[in-house]
């Protein structure tokens, strides 16, 4: 955690990232640096490639061209095992939770802890309870994913993403489908992770309220191209019609 903090070099450097699906270009020439200890929000309308960008930088989809560096190391050419070492230092909250359905919430969170550490059962137990408590699901510990609502699944998934204390946390639409109160609690948790633990957080979202609360930097995508990359205030001042429209329509 400390090494990446002291030096302010970016934790993730993306250069000219391109993704194609058949002949369809979904991402075109994306270049972004993501800095440590910051909350970077990727936003844009539906279908503009937000989730695709996230999945391409994590090699869940293989990009067609470009370069992605984590902590200065090029990941696109890495072998599977080398890349797993990178992934162990990251966590991801998926859009619909993506909990393993056949096992309880407790076991879902214990999987990364059991597989990647040699901690004792008592410590693992405590970690699971505290992580679930952080996301406000302390009571759901022995439930099966099928017994949880959509929002609860999402929060359980966040607890699983946090199991190994990742240095970078990726969230795919964390507040979509949540009620405003839960959504705010989740935002506060994310802010807390940033302030207390200096975690680097990358969030895909289009909830304006949440963007205003948490974003340090925003990346605005439109039609697979990056229109803007900078702080929220800069975005307002940039006078880019699509961005102005996005913020205008989202007001209430």
């Amino acid at each position, binding site marked *: *955690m*400390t090494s990446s903090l002291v030096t302010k070099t970016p934790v993730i450097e993306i250069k000219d990232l391109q993704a194609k699906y058949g002949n369809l270009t979904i991402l075109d020439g994306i270049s972004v640096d993501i800095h440590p200890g910051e909350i970077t929000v990727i936003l844009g309308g539906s279908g503009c490639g937000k989730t695709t960008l996230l999945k391409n930088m994590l090699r869940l989809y293989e990009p067609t061209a470009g370069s992605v560096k984590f902590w200065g190391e090029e990941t696109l050419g890495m072998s599977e095992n080398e890349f797993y070492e990178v992934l162990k230092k990251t966590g991801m909250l998926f859009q619909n939770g993506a909990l393993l*359905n*056949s096992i309880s919430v407790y076991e879902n969170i214990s999987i990364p*802890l059991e597989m990647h*550490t*040699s*901690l*004792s059962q*008592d*410590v*693992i137990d*405590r*970690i699971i*309870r*505290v*992580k679930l*408590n*952080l996301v406000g699901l*302390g*009571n759901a*510990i*022995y439930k*099966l994913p*099928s017994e949880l609502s959509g929002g609860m699944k999402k929060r359980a998934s966040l607890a699983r993403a*946090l199991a*190994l*204390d990742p240095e970078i946390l990726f969230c795919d639409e964390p507040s979509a489908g949540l009620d405003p109160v839960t959504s705010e609690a989740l935002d506060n948790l994310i802010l*807390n*992770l940033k*302030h*207390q*633990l*200096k975690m680097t957080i990358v969030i895909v979202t289009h909830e304006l309220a949440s963007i205003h609360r948490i974003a340090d930097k925003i990346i605005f995508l439109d039609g697979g191209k990056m229109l803007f990359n900078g702080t929220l205030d800069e975005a307002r001042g940039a006078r880019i019609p699509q961005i102005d429209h996005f913020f205008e329509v989202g007001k209430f």
Partner: protein
Amino acid sequence: MSISINNNVLTLEGEFTKESVPALEAELSKLNKSASTAGISMIDLGGIHRIDSAGVSFLDGIHQRLGEKAGILLFKGARADVQAVIDTFSTINLPVIEAQREMGFFEKLGDDTIKAYQAIVEGLTLASEIMYYSAVGILSRKGQRKGSTIQQAALLGSQALPIVALLSFIIGFILSLQSGVQLKNFGAGVFLADLLAITMVREMGPLITSIIVAGRSGSAIASEIATMQVTEELDALRMMALHPIRFVVVPKFHAITFVMPLLVMFSILVAELGGAMIAVLMLDTSVETFVSRSIEILSLKDIIISFGKSIWFAWVIVVIGSYYGFQVKGGAEGVGKATTAAVVSSIFAVILFDAVFSLLYL
């Protein structure tokens, strides 16, 4: 990183992360054995320069274990950034939630019995509903889409022809081959025709066809209805004032009642073809003899049993498929489970009923 005890002060130094905690745990248990940890009244956290949630959990473990012995326990001087992590991940004041108690053997037995009873009641209720609406559905097509029965008949029936043909031919062929060898030893090769006709018409024809249909169509029915249940399509139908059973199940019921006897007939004919091949090539029976003996041996009763069985099995398959479809719980995963359960139970039920039929109408 290290743990040491001086003047009842437990001093912790170094990194307390998920990588180092296992080693620290080992060290602590060693300390526990050699030195006295009972008198410790203070834990010095000043030397910790990095900590994560595993480290905090470890500290909390020490805290609770020592705190119970010593009564009062003080923490001293963690660095601000370390303290922030400790505050975030502290497990001291978390409520402990008890896991649900596992049921005992007899409890489970009783529970399962009640569940089985309920399942039978629900299954029979569903069966009677399907029967009722299917009977009503013959006279009035209300609540069914036009052409859905014919579409289902094609799906459940004609598309099953190739696989039924292939398997029936192979089974007819093998049955004849095995029994042909034995019959030939006694010079009774000509009786192969009788044997195969009776076996296929009374037993194997309906049985093989039903097993294939259970695997092919029983699973399709279960997964279709289960998917509709999971994706709220059945609720949508209800909200359009359409009865799900009438809209979804009745066309399948009519279709399968109609096509199953035809499939069975087809299966018997193809199997006879396989048998005839053996009779002609291996046992020197003429085709005419084979055909005439096959027809002569069969009584009307055999044919009625064959048809009766095939229709009954068809109904069993539809009812079981729909039952598991409607009972589905818990999303996409439930659909898979429902489908598997439907296939297994309908094959089981078909074989069971076949045995019952054979005993009743020998």
